[in-house]
């Protein structure tokens, strides 16, 4: 097993979730379709390729030695082309399919070895699923569909309908509670699917190509609905998709599957920048990464020097000018001890300040250079950065300095993007 299979520490994105505990741990998971899985398993251990195994025995290897962890509260996207085993993999997590070998630990409990009673209990209590074709029951009203999980679990009618109405309100469908699914549009039907999954208040939701059957506009809308729900109440979501834009928009981390194997796990931008295999590289080709980049993603700290707020202005500003000249830079940023950005200075502004009769801090700051918010999309600041010679400081939501964006950094990124797609 190579290093790409295990999520490295660098894989954690800027989501602030890096230290969350593992919700699901998948270890050496294998699924063989066919009547002689043991033979196929043995051949896999001997290192034979799945195509060879199929040729010799007729056994189909659906998932091959998958190992990864899903952290509590993250949206984990499983990506791959059709036939790569992603739908099989998600069905192994709640045992809609029986694993051939390996472990699936949910909150430390091995799903693969549970008996029927425990399994039903887990499905009723703590995990639910959303399907590509919505899979609503056509003979039930929207309300009864939303209440399905609760009904199965034996919750009495008044209580489950109250809860179902609550979740229907969350997805904006209260007015349609008494309708049948066939009277609803595709997007609305999937809202019902989502409501049904939310009604049991699970800590884990499995979503199998949940928005793939919707047109792009509706898909976008549903992604927002999901992200809004996630903002209010963090659940662990495993999301199967073949749409990279979707993975970038909603995924905290993604896993790329190829031919039944998980070939890379990590932060989407990280994977795009450092693809583990040619397959992954090919997968990301043609995807315009700048669409998903934020200013924070490209900001760098090695381009512009930072100086502390001076206590002795003439001495320290003098030293700053010397430093800037020695490293052949013209601009610098001032930060306070908590690393909050105070302002932007240049050699000229520092000299001007020192030339004043009573040099003060305000006199040194350039007031025409705004700070950029780290969360804003890269695209939005493109023109602003390109048209100005000076670097822009980048700050996060709390005003903490994150780095600088300069024309050079901009050019490098666009250039990388060109070569990657070539």
């Amino acid at each position, binding site marked *: 097993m190579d290093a790409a299979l295990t999520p490295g520490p660098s894989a954690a994105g800027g989501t602030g979730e890096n230290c969350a505990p593992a919700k699901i741990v998948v270890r050496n998971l294998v699924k063989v379709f066919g009547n002689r899985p043991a033979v196929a398993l043995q051949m896999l251990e001997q290192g034979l390729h799945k195509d060879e195994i199929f040729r010799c025995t007729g056994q189909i290897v659906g998932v091959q030695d998958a190992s990864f962890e899903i952290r509590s509260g993250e949206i984990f996207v499983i990506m791959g082309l059709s036939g790569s085993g992603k739908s099989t993999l998600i069905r192994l997590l709640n045992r809609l399919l029986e694993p051939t070998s390996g472990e699936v630990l949910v909150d430390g409990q091995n799903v693969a070895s549970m008996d029927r009673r425990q399994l*039903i209990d887990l499905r009723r209590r703590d995990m639910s*699923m959303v399907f590509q074709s919505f899979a609503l029951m056509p*003979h039930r009203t929207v309300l009864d569909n939303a209440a399905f999980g609760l009904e199965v679990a034996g919750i009495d009618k008044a209580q489950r309908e109250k809860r179902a109405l609550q979740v229907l309100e969350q997805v904006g469908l209260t007015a349609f509670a008494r309708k049948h699914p066939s009277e609803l549009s595709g997007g609305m039907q999937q809202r019902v699917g989502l409501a049904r999954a939310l009604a049991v208040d699970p800590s884990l939701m499995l979503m199998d190509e949940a928005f793939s059957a919707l047109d792009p506009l509706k898909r976008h809308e549903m992604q927002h609905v999901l992200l809004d729900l996630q903002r209010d109440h963090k659940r662990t979501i495993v999301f199967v998709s073949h749409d990279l834009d979707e993975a970038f928009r909603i995924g905290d981390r993604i896993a790329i599957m190829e031919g039944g194997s998980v070939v890379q796990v990590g932060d989407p931008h990280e994977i795009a920048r450092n693809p583990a295999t040619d397959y992954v590289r090919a997968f990301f080709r043609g995807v315009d990464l700048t669409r998903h980049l934020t200013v924070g993603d490209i900001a760098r700290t090695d381009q512009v020097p930072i100086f502390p707020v001076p206590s002795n202005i003439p001495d320290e500003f003098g030293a700053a000018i010397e430093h800037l000249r020695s490293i052949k830079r013209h601009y610098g940023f001032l930060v306070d001890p908590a690393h909050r950005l105070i302002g932007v200075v240049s050699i000229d502004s520092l000299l001007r300040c020192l030339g004043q009769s009573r040099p003060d801090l305000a006199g040194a700051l350039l007031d025409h250079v705004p700070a950029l918010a780290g969360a804003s999309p890269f695209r939005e600041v493109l023109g602003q950065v390109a048209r100005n010679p000076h670097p822009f400081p980048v700050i996060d939501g709390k005003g903490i300095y994150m780095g600088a964006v300069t024309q050079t950094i901009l050019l490098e990124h666009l250039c990388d993007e060109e070569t990657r797609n070539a």
Partner: protein
Amino acid sequence: MHDALPLGQWVSQFLNFVLAHDNGTLENLGKVIGAFAEAIEAVLVALPDWAVAGAISAIGLWRVGWKFGLFCAASFFVIIATGFWPATMSTLALITASAVISLVLGIPLGIWMARSDRVAALVRPVLDFMQTMPAFVYLIPAAMLFGLGKVPGVLATVIFAMPPAVRLTNLGIRQVNKEQVEAGIAFGCTPRQLLLKVQIPGAMPSIMAGVNQTIMMALSMVIIASMVGAGGLGNDVLASIQRLDIGLGFESGLSVVLLAIILDRITESFGASSAQPQASWRERARNLMARRQPSGP
């Protein structure tokens, strides 16, 4: 026919063996079936003709539409006016008894087939046999085992009419959308809950088509069953053939046709409504009331 392989002899020897070693089981079974069929007939005959005709026409009006309701009423008028009402009710009783038995046996068997490939593989050739063997042939063992009358008629009809109910139930359950079944399992259904809450409701259109087919096949068979003395319209059809009486043949045949159309359309309407979920009558009534009331806050 040929002595090289005396299959026919073996079958008749087997039947004789059953007859010889039967200690009242067959007789009791026959009594139960006979009592069931006769009870239904007794009710239908005891009720005044206008009441039965009116009730069925009303069902036609409610399920299909006012035109069909009118058609039902006109049909019953023709049947009563030509004097075939008692025979028609007798036939309807035979159909009802046979269909009920067929469905009570057939639908569970279909469910079992859908849940087990082994059972399906075992039952399918038997169903093929039941359906393709010329219908008259069933009358012989039925009459041998149960004598003449309603009982062998009902039994032969059950054998002939059951296969569509079994087949279409099996097919319907197997064809329920795969993701719907997965959803049922994923939300924690036990196998029983899955069957009752997902699979059977999902298979309902197909099951109802099976019910419709079973009733129609039962109708065709109970006419033939008059040959073993099951009675009803079949008797008149049989008599018209024996006497080459085209008038009697047409009149009794017309009663069969009208009964067939009425039964077909009404049972079909139940299948259609389960295919396309409509508001239940309760909801429809509620909607109607709500519309009449002045709009409140």
